[in-house]
Every structure is written in C-alpha cells, then in structure tokens.
C-alpha cells in the first residue's frame, strides 16, 4: 500500500506561471521522500497536486497503481498535514482525529479505539477532551499527524509543518515524525525549504528549482555529488570555482582556473576540451597550509580575509590572488590562522566535482 507515481506532471497557473514542469517521480512503499527547494520552486504545488487540491495541466498521478488524476481530494485517501495545521478550532482533540471516521460513519467503538491508539502513538494519551487552543505548538503538531493518519492513508503528505516552530522544538518534532513514520511504514511526501531538515529526515530528497526536478537522490548522494551548481549551493555551502577544461586524458582532466591549473582524476564526467564549467568543493574539503611550504598539486596562494567560529568549526574566508573567495571550514584545535595571514589553499582531489554551468 502506498506507491506513488507522478508521470510528466505539469501545472500552469493563469496566465502563464509554470509552477510545475514535467515532473516524473516514483515513490516506493514506506519511503520518506522530501521535496526540497526555495519558495516558488513548485514543491507545494506538487504536493497539492497529489492531494487533489490542484488539477494538473498535463500529466497523471498514480497511487497504488490506480490513476487518481481525475479524483477529487475526498476520494484519494491521502492524509495531509497543512502548513497552518488547520486543526478545526470548533472541535476538541477527539473531534479532530475522529472527523474522517465520523464522516465515513464508522462505529462509535471503532472510532474510540482508533483515536486511543493514535493518541498513544503520538504520545498524547488522555488529551482527547482538550480544546485545540489549549494545546502547545508541539501537541498541535501531533494532533495534526494523528488526524491525517486516522484513515490509514495510502500516502502521508506534509506541507512545511515545522516552519513556524522554534529551533529546538523543530528538531524534536523532526525526530518524532521520522520515528512515527518508520513505525507505521507509511509512504510519506514531505515538503520543506529547509535543507538541514531534508538532510536529516529523508530516505530520498527531490531538489526542485523553478518548477523542475534538479536532482533526486539520498541525502548523502546529493551532498557529495550535486548534479548542478544550484543543488550544490542549496544543499549546504559550497565553493564554486569557474574553470575551463584544458585537456582530457584517460586518467585525468586538466583544468585552468583564475588561480592556476587543477587536475582531477577518476572523473566519470563526460567533458569535452574547451568546455567552461564550475568546480564545486565543500568548505570541509579545503585545507589550508602555511604559505612558505613548497607548492603542492591543486593548490594556490591566498590570504585570510575573515574568520568566524561556527559551533565546533572555524570558517576561514580566503581571498585568492585572482580575487576569488574560498571558504574553508576547520575543526578547532588544528593549527589556527589569523586574519591577514598568507596561506596556501589546497583542494582535496577526491572531494571536488565538475558541474555544468546552469543554463538559467
């Protein structure tokens, strides 16, 4: 129960705002998939298409192999948690969770048992008589989960449910949601613009940009191997260095950058000589050395321009000779540099990726 498939899905709002364009996506049973992207990237529209609140301009939606494209939202059995939660203010906790079952005329005992089971699942046992307004933010979240799961939905949809929570509560709820989801093994589509949230919760992440899917993959894949400069930038921080492919041989690719030559081994990227591209390297893969050392491969000189402490890490902002800014992040305790120090920037060979320049 719960396989979701989107085939060539597009949604155009009048007059010609293309919210979602040619989205193809298959979500397996029990999988937790996050739609990630900046505001206006089409992630919420995609979710609303699955829920049936929007009608696709083209394309089809399948849930458990059944084409639901033409079905209204109340025939889809997709449990949704809204950004505002939308818990009915005129009903108590029990009334909210029981709503769907009452509409479908389940028996009183059946409803009571199910509500009790759900409340214990979201750790709210004994709260059925509370008014929504009497609940804390975290408790309201849990009631919203329970309400959406009460009908045993084929797919569990969440539209940025944690956006309004403060940081601590948000992390608590992230853990809670993922535990809950693993326990009941419900197929889940989660929408967020928060890349940390996506990284820490998902089986797979779908990075969306301007209505299209940029990349689909596990959090690790997307972090280590971003498919585009947009993804590299959106997931964590990265350094993007413009480069031109100079020579491609079997074992290495040689590139020129404003700060000097760089060579890349073991690349499976199919690049032609003369191509202009971008090198992406994460700050934690940039090493710094004292400038007086003898030059090493894939390194160039620079100067510490700015330095700041971020938790356990120190971030150095290095100004290179050609005027580029490279960020390096270091565990504290390593040899420390100070603002104004000349340094040698070393790019770890295994850690960088060649990316095609964005067309946009």
């Amino acid at each position, binding site marked *: 129960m719960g396989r979701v498939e989107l085939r060539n899905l597009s949604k155009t709002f009048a007059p010609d705002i293309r919210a979602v364009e040619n989205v193809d996506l298959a979500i397996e049973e029990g999988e937790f998939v996050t739609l990630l992207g900046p505001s206006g990237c089409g992630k919420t529209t995609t979710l609303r298409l699955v*829920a*049936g*609140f929007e009608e696709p301009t083209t394309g089809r939606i399948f849930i458990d192999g059944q084409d639901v494209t033409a079905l*209204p*939202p*109340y*025939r889809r*059995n*997709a*449990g*949704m948690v*809204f*950004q*505002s939660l*939308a*818990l*009915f*203010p*005129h*009903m*108590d906790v*029990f*009334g*909210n969770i*029981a*709503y*769907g079952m*009452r*509409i*479908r005329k389940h028996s009183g005992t059946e409803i*009571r048992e199910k509500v009790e089971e759900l409340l214990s699942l979201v750790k709210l046992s004994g709260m*059925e*008589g509370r008014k929504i307004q009497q609940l804390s933010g975290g408790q309201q979240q849990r009631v919203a989960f329970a*309400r*959406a799961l*009460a*009908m045993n939905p084929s797919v569990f949809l969440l539209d940025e449910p944690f956006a309004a929570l403060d940081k601590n509560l948000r992390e608590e709820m992230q853990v809670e949601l993922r535990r809950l989801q693993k326990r009941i093994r419900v197929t889940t589509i989660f929408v967020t613009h928060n890349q940390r949230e996506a990284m820490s919760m998902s089986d797979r992440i779908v990075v969306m940009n301007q209505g299209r899917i940029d990349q689909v993959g596990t959090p690790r894949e997307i972090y280590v191997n971003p498919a585009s400069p947009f993804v590299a930038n959106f997931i964590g921080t990265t350094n993007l260095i413009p480069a031109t492919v100079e020579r491609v041989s079997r074992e290495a690719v040689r590139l020129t950058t404003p700060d000097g030559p760089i060579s890349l081994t073991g690349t499976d990227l199919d690049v032609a000589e003369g191509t202009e591209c971008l090198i992406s390297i994460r700050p934690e893969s940039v090493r710094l050395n004292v400038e007086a050392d003898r030059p090493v491969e894939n390194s160039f000189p620079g100067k510490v321009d700015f330095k700041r402490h971020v938790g356990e890490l120190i971030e150095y902002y290095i100004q290179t000779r050609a005027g580029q800014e490279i960020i390096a992040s270091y565990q504290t305790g390593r040899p420390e540099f100070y603002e104004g120090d000349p340094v040698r920037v070393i790019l770890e060979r295994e850690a960088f990726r060649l990316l095609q320049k964005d067309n946009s």
Partner: protein
Amino acid sequence: MRRQGGKLKYLVAYPLGMLIIFFLIPLAMLIAFSFYYHPPGGFYEPAFTLENYTRFFTKVLYLKRLAFTVEISALTAVLCLLLGYPFTYYLTRIASRKRFYIILVISTLWLSYIIRSYAWTVILSKHAGISKLFAWVGIIEQTRSYTPGLFAVIIGLVYVFLPFMVLTLYGTLKGINREYEEASLNLGAGPWKTFVNVTLPLSKDGIISGALLVFILTLGAYVVPSILGKPQQWTMAIIIGDQATYESNVPFGASMALVLMVFAILTIGLIAKLGGTKSLTVGAKGR
C-alpha cells in the same frame, strides 16, 4: 505621573461626554416621558403614572403590532441570511475583483430608503412593474399590483437590509482559512459535508451578528412599511411616530419605544447566550 493622569482624564472625558450627551440624557428623558401624564387634548404633564404601559399591554391592537413587528423582523433576518450567505460565500471564495462587488453592494446604500421604497412601488405596481412581465410569461393570468401589501413590505425590507447582512458575513467568511475546508476534503468529506461540518460552524459568529443586526434594524423600520404596506403591515415604529406626531401623545409613544427597546435587548441577550453554547456540528458533540 500626575501630568499623565491629567491627560488621561481628558482622554476618558471625550467618550464619556459623548455617551452622556448623545445616549444617556436622551434615554433618561425617554424613560421619564414614558411615565408622564397625557391630558386629553393637551401634550404632557410631568407625573408618575403607569397608565401608558397598562394601555399598551391591555390593548390587543398594540400587542398585535408588536407581534407583527417581531415576526416580520425575524422573517427579514432569515431571508437576508438565506440570500446573503451564498452570495457572500461566493464573493469570498470564488470571485475575483472582490472589492468591486463589495462597492456595488454598498452603493445601494447611497440612495435614501425613501427613494428606494418608492422605486419598489413602481416595480411592484400593476401597470409598470414585474406584474406585466409575469403576465406576459404566463405565470399569472392578469396583471395585478403587489403594493401596498405584505409581499411588498417583505421585498422592500429584505432589499434595504441585505447589504448589512452581506457586509457582516463578509468579514467572517473571508477570515475562515481555506485550509480548514481543504483539511475536511482531505479527510474524506465531500463539499456539502465540508460546508455543514466546517464552514457553517466556523461562520456561526457572522451569522448570529448579521441576523441580529438585520432583526434589530427591521424592528425599528419605519419608511419601508409605511410606503409599501397597508395599515395591517404597520410596524411599531409607525405606531410610535403616529402617537408622537399626530396624536400629540409623547408619553404613550415613549413607553412603546421603551417596550420595543427592552424587547430588542432581551433578544440580543437570548441569542448571544444560545449562540455561545449551542453548536451545529458532528465534531463538536464530543464523545
């Protein structure tokens, strides 16, 4: 601190002064007049007599007018609600250019009641009005006049007070987050069940205030029933006006005005109490 206290005094003095000058003094005068003595052929003499009230409560004629006024006010409120709710709902949920439609609704208020009431006398007349259209279409056999009469009074009242219903409901309906309705659809309730179980209960406050507003406005209606109605359709306001102007009996008019006012206050209290505790829905029943 002292200076601030002094300024605060002036700030409070303004609304307090307004209240005293425009509400408390006239009300006190009305109450006083209602106990005055009305000498035959004269105006009034200060006195304390319950004669005005006993006259009202012992004469079937006056009690009937009160009953009719209450009935027609309730009917107008219900009709305005039935007509106004779907319209306003459409306005807040579907229509674009909401502001334009709202201005259109308000624009009917720019003309005086008197002009609009006379307009209805023309529309409902035998020779110029909708009667001709009805006869031509074949709904009725012969053209006839609907005015003056009960039908005309009801149409006039609904027409005149509908904008107040729409404006009151508009605020409430616009304030209902659409996600509530979407959540209901998502949980398997179709459009009608969603309306009954979510939208309607959430708009309860607007329905109550709108209906009360129209009810109370109609309780005091004077122009529409006097232009579009026969004496059988005269409301309390017309009877009160008659007493005060034509019969020169201000004390009796004042006592009837007070009876009407007390009645309105009791109605508001009763409905507010019922509305506060009663609920219309499946979910609110608890377990």
